[in-house]
């Protein structure tokens, strides 16, 4: 007596569709409620993803994820000074790919012969193999053209010097005016330089000169007895004590261990991962708050689904009793009710995603068009999230009514009503 086949899935769906068609008002109300919740959640997720990518892209322009900025500040912790000898020791640590000493924190004036000038931040580079400069996109010129008497500038500095076309800036003669506090007031030195290349944008929008010149400038500024910088000097000062070095690890995964090892030696370290982590935390909190709004809307929708499913089941208890009289099992009845929830969810998820996509594309058009990164991405996995979210809400809300329908008994229904 157990050879009967189960109800066909196509029949389950056919019956579910006909039931939904019988109560179009309930169906449209449920679809609307769930769609709104899905829309809010998808838009919030899209914004969260877009902002995270934007933050990552922006930060990665300033530093690579596998780079550690190491400094030795005796006021914070006793660490071996960053001399070439100690830098060489650091370079021998495991998982280290490159070590680049850098001179930074030099502020100066850069002026054209036309009298246009701008205040700049200057840093050193070791030249065409230094990842600090090679990772930039150049609008004109090339870092390989950087010589002892030339400078790499970012696009923003070129604009401030009133040079419209970045290509016209390459080869242009400029004057770098450096200043220090002397015994009889401020002293300054003018260094004639040529613009070697224009980068789209550099870290903190700063300019770069070769390391020997940067060393001379810092020594002159910090030591009253030091001679003024000379462009002809090409040798690196091996007695120089750097404030900062950049370390590139073999991979991003080694960054944490390398930082720990360096900090044990007394050095201070910083990594772009810190900033990304901080942004992530802020973004996570914002995403939770915003997604909660969507979840509240979805919850409201679920209550509507529950009410509609409950009312529908109570209205149809007599039908289910007839089904049971003619061989329907509790499982079949449950599948019939849940199939209605699934169909509602599929339609609501689709409409919610389509509406969210429209909102995201509109926001991108008006608010995100000036940013290189897509701030409101619309991707296939968001459609999946939309459908799963709608499905979860609808099925959960219909479970209880479905169980009531499945456990109703014909005699009780017909006797008591």
């Amino acid at each position: 007596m157990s050879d009967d086949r189960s109800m066909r899935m196509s029949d389950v769906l056919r019956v579910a569709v006909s039931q939904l068609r019988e109560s179009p008002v309930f169906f449209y109300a449920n679809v609307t409620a769930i769609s709104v919740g899905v829309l809010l959640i998808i838009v919030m997720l899209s914004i969260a993803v877009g902002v995270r990518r934007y933050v990552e892209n922006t930060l990665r322009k300033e530093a690579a994820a596998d780079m550690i900025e190491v400094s030795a500040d005796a006021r914070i912790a006793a660490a071996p000074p960053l001399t070439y000898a100690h830098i060489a020791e650091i370079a021998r640590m495991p998982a280290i790919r490159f070590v680049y000493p850098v001179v930074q924190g030099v502020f100066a004036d850069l002026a054209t012969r036309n009298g246009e000038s701008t205040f700049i931040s200057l840093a050193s580079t070791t030249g065409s193999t230094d990842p600090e400069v090679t990772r930039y996109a150049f609008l004109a010129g090339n870092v390989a053209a950087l010589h002892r008497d030339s400078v790499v500038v970012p696009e923003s500095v070129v604009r401030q010097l009133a040079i419209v076309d970045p290509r016209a800036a390459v080869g242009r003669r400029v004057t770098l005016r450096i200043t220090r506090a002397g015994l009889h007031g401020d002293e300054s030195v003018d260094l004639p330089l040529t613009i070697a290349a224009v980068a789209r944008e550099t870290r903190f929008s700063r300019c770069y000169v070769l390391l020997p010149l940067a060393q001379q400038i810092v020594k002159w500024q910090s030591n009253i007895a030091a001679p003024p910088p000379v462009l002809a000097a090409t040798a690196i000062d091996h007695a120089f004590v750097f404030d900062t070095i950049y370390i590139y690890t073999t991979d991003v995964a080694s960054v944490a261990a390398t930082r720990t090892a360096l900090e044990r030696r007394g050095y201070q370290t910083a990594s772009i991962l810190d900033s990304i982590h901080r942004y992530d935390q802020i973004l996570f909190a914002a995403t939770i708050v915003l997604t909660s709004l969507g979840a509240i809307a979805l919850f409201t929708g679920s209550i509507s689904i529950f009410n509609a499913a409950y009312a529908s089941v109570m209205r149809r208890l007599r039908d289910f009793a007839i089904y049971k009289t003619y061989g329907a099992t509790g499982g079949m009845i449950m599948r019939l009710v849940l199939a209605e929830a699934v169909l509602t969810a599929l339609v609501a998820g689709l409409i919610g995603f389509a509406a969210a996509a429209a909102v995201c594309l509109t926001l991108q058009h008006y608010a995100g068009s000036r940013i290189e990164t897509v701030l409101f991405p619309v991707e296939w996995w968001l459609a999946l999230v939309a459908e799963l979210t709608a499905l979860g809400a609808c099925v959960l809300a219909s479970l209880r009514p479905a169980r009531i329908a499945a456990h109703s008994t014909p005699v009780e229904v017909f006797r008591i009503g």
Partner: protein
Amino acid sequence: MGASGRSAGKLNRYELERVSLRFQSRGRGLDHAETLALKDVSLNVRAGELAVVMGASGSGKSTLLHVLAGLATPDKGTVQFRDDDGDSPVDLAKASEDERARIRGRHIGFVYQALNLIPTMTAGENVALPLLFRGITPRDRAAKAEAMIRGVGLDKHAGRYPSELSGGEQQRVAIARALVFEPEVLLADEPTGSLDSQSSGDVLSVFRQFHESAGLTIILVTHDDSVAQKLGGRVIRMRDGVVQEGERAR
């Protein structure tokens, strides 16, 4: 108590042994009440037999029919049901709800007093309904339903909704629905209760036709003596939940 046992090589379709069923009203305190609907009922029904259960309103005849269909579970006793497949008898009193639903879906057709046609389905769809739960394809369902509707003389009414049919026609649709999956037993609760004599005669002739041509076991509940006389077969009389009179072969 009527216990006919086996005869002429026919197996007992049903063997009820000391079946009791008590209904409880859902009130509280003084509103709470119990009704003993069936009291120690023992009864055998042979395969292919036509039995008419008679009794006054409240005598327990409909409850007996519900127990035979597995729609109600007795508090006491056994309800052995044997099908034509040669399987061991199943005790409907102990079978699970789903198991009883499956047995009904294969072996037992049921006609309610109130017809219980689904108003949003056409006569054809109502008749095909039991086949839906057996995994039968839509085409086969339609063909079987059409043949069954023709069998009860309603072939021109298949596309009509119950509200567009007369009482007699609705009853014939209900009978067609109960028989569409070719059950071995047909249980009918007051099938002519709300019909005029002409319609009542039509419906009874349908019962007789299927009983004679297909060897269907029919158990019919009625309070109307004339129905029992027109239909023939064994009469089982009930009073206050007790089978009073065993059988009267006609």
